[in-house]
């Protein structure tokens, strides 16, 4: 209680200035404090203003935003009244920032060490040599491989997880009193996320720095935060110690957030399936990139894949990035022709190449992309987007087409007014629903869903899964549901295929796959899913290490 206040926001209001000069309130009257050695989590969904608030602690607003009222202060110094030069002295020196994507925030043209040390050197707190030594120490404590030499590399030469940790080093090199971490683990695979989280926690504790941790993931917050501030639409809804907020949420919004947290991986409800009615059979398929069409590719991604999908079944495909799960979907869709093996649709062999497949076959398999932002054409109205498959596959025109589009909108729980709107007028979740509706318009037998929820906030994602469940029940469509998120998959799928380095590591019903003894990689995945309880991180570590060791042995043999 008596600890010194490092950062304080008082009645902070931040507005966005539109092109026409009108203003939109982004942060409304926010008040909170960060004390020495304390980690305060700002939690909320996209658009809640959490990043905006976090950045205000560096005296910074994104272009187009401005502080309209209130103050932010660092060690009782008012940041809002400082000039650019004064702010420059503080940034990097007293307060440091860690962004969501290290790949984007590292300058590709400069060596890592220069970027890590430059802030400290420029602010004069260290000489270049001191900074170099200090950085090496940080690399050690962040468990980076090759700490002596990693700094001499360029950003593209190290992995994403390492880069994320290097960004922590970059922030810590100036020994700041306040760290601002903006979703620093969100872009990472589950297994990597745990490692990075662990490293962050370790250095924060070691250095005794205060931190503002911005995230939408309650489970992550539970592992690292001392206090939690819950935001919605620029307003603080609830704040308190981590324990209090997580164990006894009081505000309805906080409660909703808690509900949306993915349940632990467990077998979902059993659906009765006719296992003999196969929609898709994949037999010995191999595929890869490079080289000529139909000949053996230069880089093989998928090796000898065998899978089956019954009518009405949901097959979850899980694995980390690079495991080949998206490639599998592309092979089924015909975007990437396989060079070996065959795929059967309703017992009929599919041509490997998309161009060779008849329209009737194309209609039966529909692809749903991960990023709704890029998957729907920004220059077409929703009516056009949804109408096109209708006229293309089903020869449906005019009023009939329009009626069907409205039905589809209804089916994905969107209002009819959306018919004439453009995609940019919709929110992320709504776009993803349009994305789904477009696939459904074709009246397909199989939906290939590629990470359809991973770009969405937890509540929105949960809603989309709910929608999928309903559709499946009503329409009897089969799903190939690709995700890196074991909890989502286990909640929705009937069976699971675990992919690891281009092969199917394990496959079977959800129950079978999730219950031990399983493949060590599955084990690793299961134990890496964070639980919503304080102290899980430390507990999980043992299991994760065990799984990792097993996996290594497996690889060797």
């Amino acid at each position, binding site marked *: 209680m008596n600890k010194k206040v490092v950062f304080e926001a008082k009645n902070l209001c931040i507005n966005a200035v539109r092109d026409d000069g009108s203003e939109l309130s982004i942060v409304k009257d926010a008040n909170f404090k960060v004390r020495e050695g304390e980690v305060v989590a700002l939690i909320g969904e996209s658009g809640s203003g959490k990043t905006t608030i976090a950045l205000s602690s560096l005296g910074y607003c994104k272009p187009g935003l401005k502080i309209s009222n209130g103050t932010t202060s660092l060690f009782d110094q008012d940041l809002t009244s400082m000039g650019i030069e004064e702010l420059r002295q503080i940034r990097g020196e007293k307060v440091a920032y860690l962004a969501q994507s290290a790949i984007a925030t590292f300058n590709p043209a400069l060596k890592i060490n220069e970027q890590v040390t430059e802030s400290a050197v420029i602010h004069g707190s260290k000489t270049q040599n001191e900074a170099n030594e200090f950085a090496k120490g940080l690399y050690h404590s962040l468990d980076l491989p090759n700490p002596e030499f990693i700094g001499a590399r360029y950003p593209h030469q190290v992995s994403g997880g390492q880069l994320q940790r290097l960004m922590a080093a970059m922030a810590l090199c100036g020994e700041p009193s306040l760290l601002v971490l903006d979703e620093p683990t969100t872009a990472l695979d589950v297994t990597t996320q745990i490692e990075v989280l662990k490293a962050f926690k370790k250095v924060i504790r070691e250095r005794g720095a205060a931190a503002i941790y911005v995230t939408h993931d309650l489970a992550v917050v539970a592992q690292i935060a001392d206090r939690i501030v819950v935001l919605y639409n620029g307003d603080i809804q*609830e704040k308190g110690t981590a324990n209090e907020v997580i164990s006894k949420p009081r505000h*309805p919004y906080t409660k*909703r957030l808690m509900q949306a947290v993915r349940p632990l991986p467990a077998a979902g409800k059993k659906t009765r399936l006719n296992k003999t009615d196969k929609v898709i059979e994949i037999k010995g398929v191999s595929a890869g990139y490079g080289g000529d069409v139909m000949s053996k590719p230069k880089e093989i991604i998928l090796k000898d894949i065998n899978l089956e999908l019954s009518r009405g079944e949901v097959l979850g495909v899980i694995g980390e990035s690079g495991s080949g799960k998206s490639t599998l979907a592309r092979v089924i869709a015909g975007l990437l022709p396989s060079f070996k093996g065959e795929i059967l649709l309703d017992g009929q062999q599919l041509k490997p190449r998309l161009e060779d497949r008849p329209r009737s076959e194309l209609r039966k398999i529909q692809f749903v992309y991960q990023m709704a932002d890029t998957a729907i054409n920004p220059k077409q109205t929703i009516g056009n987007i949804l109408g096109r498959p209708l006229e293309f596959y089903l020869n449906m025109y005019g009023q009939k087409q329009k009626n069907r589009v409205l039905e589809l909108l209804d089916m994905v729980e969107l209002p009819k007014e959306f018919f004439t709107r453009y995609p940019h007028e919709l929110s992320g979740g709504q776009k993803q629903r349009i994305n789904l509706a477009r696939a459904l318009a074709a009246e397909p037998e199989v939906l290939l869903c590629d990470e359809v929820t991973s770009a969405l906030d937890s509540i929105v994602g949960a809603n989309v899964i709910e929608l999928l469940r309903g559709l499946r029940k009503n329409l009897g469509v089969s799903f190939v549901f690709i995700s890196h998120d074991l909890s989502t998959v286990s909640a929705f799928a009937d069976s699971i295929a675990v992919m690891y380095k281009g092969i199917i590591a394990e496959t079977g019903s959800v129950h079978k796959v999730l219950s031990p003894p399983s493949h060590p990689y599955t084990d690793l995945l299961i134990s890496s899913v964070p639980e919503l309880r304080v102290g899980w991180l430390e507990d999980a570590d043992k299991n994760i290490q065990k799984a990792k060791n097993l996996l290594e042995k497996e690889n060797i043999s």
Partner: protein
Amino acid sequence: MSNNENNEDKHYVAPFSKEVSFDELQDAPPSGKFRLSITGKLGVIVVAFWLFIAIFGQFLAPYEENDLPFPDDYSEFQKPRPGAWLGTDVDDRDILSRIMYGAGRTIGISLAGVLIAYVIGVTLGIGSSIAGSRIDQVLTQFFNILLAIPTIMFGLVVVAAVGSSIPVLIITAGAIFSPVVFRLSRALGMEIMVMDFVEAAKVRGEGYRWIIFKEIWPNAAMPLISDFGLRFIYVILFVSSLSFLGLGVQPPLADWGSMVRENLGALQYGESVIPILAPAIAIASLTVAINLIVDDVSAHAGGKLSGRL
């Protein structure tokens, strides 16, 4: 709201009502529909003015392009005065009328030339970007070769071989500028081709026509339009460079480039500089106006971060 030290550390719950649903928030409004800045609007006004003159100028002009306002006066480059509001030119003709006649010719030639360049460049560029690597390589290599040939030299040889006439100028300009347009539209096409929505159309089984006209074109249009403006300026410059070498629009036909050219020599000794500079100012006003619009179109995004330095 006043929060003292003690309040701050207490568990805080904002007031709420049961009705509030806490729905998903709308995405931040898009950085906006395209709107013109003040300078952009000024540009539009000037361009519109010149387009009007280009179409109707020859009907509104006080004289025909080679008429003499003062037949009994043998002195050129007279000061503006009633009867010749912008003065007279090197051959004692009315500059105002010639600018009005020239507007149609200059703008017409440039517009037609750029249109040809765009028809060739965009068709082949976007076609190349979706046609697959073989055709793409051949086309790219071909246009690279054309790019390597200096424009003015190319124009010179063609015009010298077949003679200078307005259709020849238009076609030559079109041919000269098509490689640049090709390169641009190919790059744009490539960029859009890898977008998921194009792939979605492919997975749907759409043919090239749909992909080109419904998926790629609407997204490529804006950048292409902004380049169109710049290209237009370059064609004006190209034709006036040819005029300098005696190969452009042939006098006595009025066109701005050759008007600048034929009057320029008198800058040292002409009685009034207004008629001498008027055609140059016409070119400058049109091109600057186009640029102002182009800047607005292309600066839609960009340059915002450096304001935070």
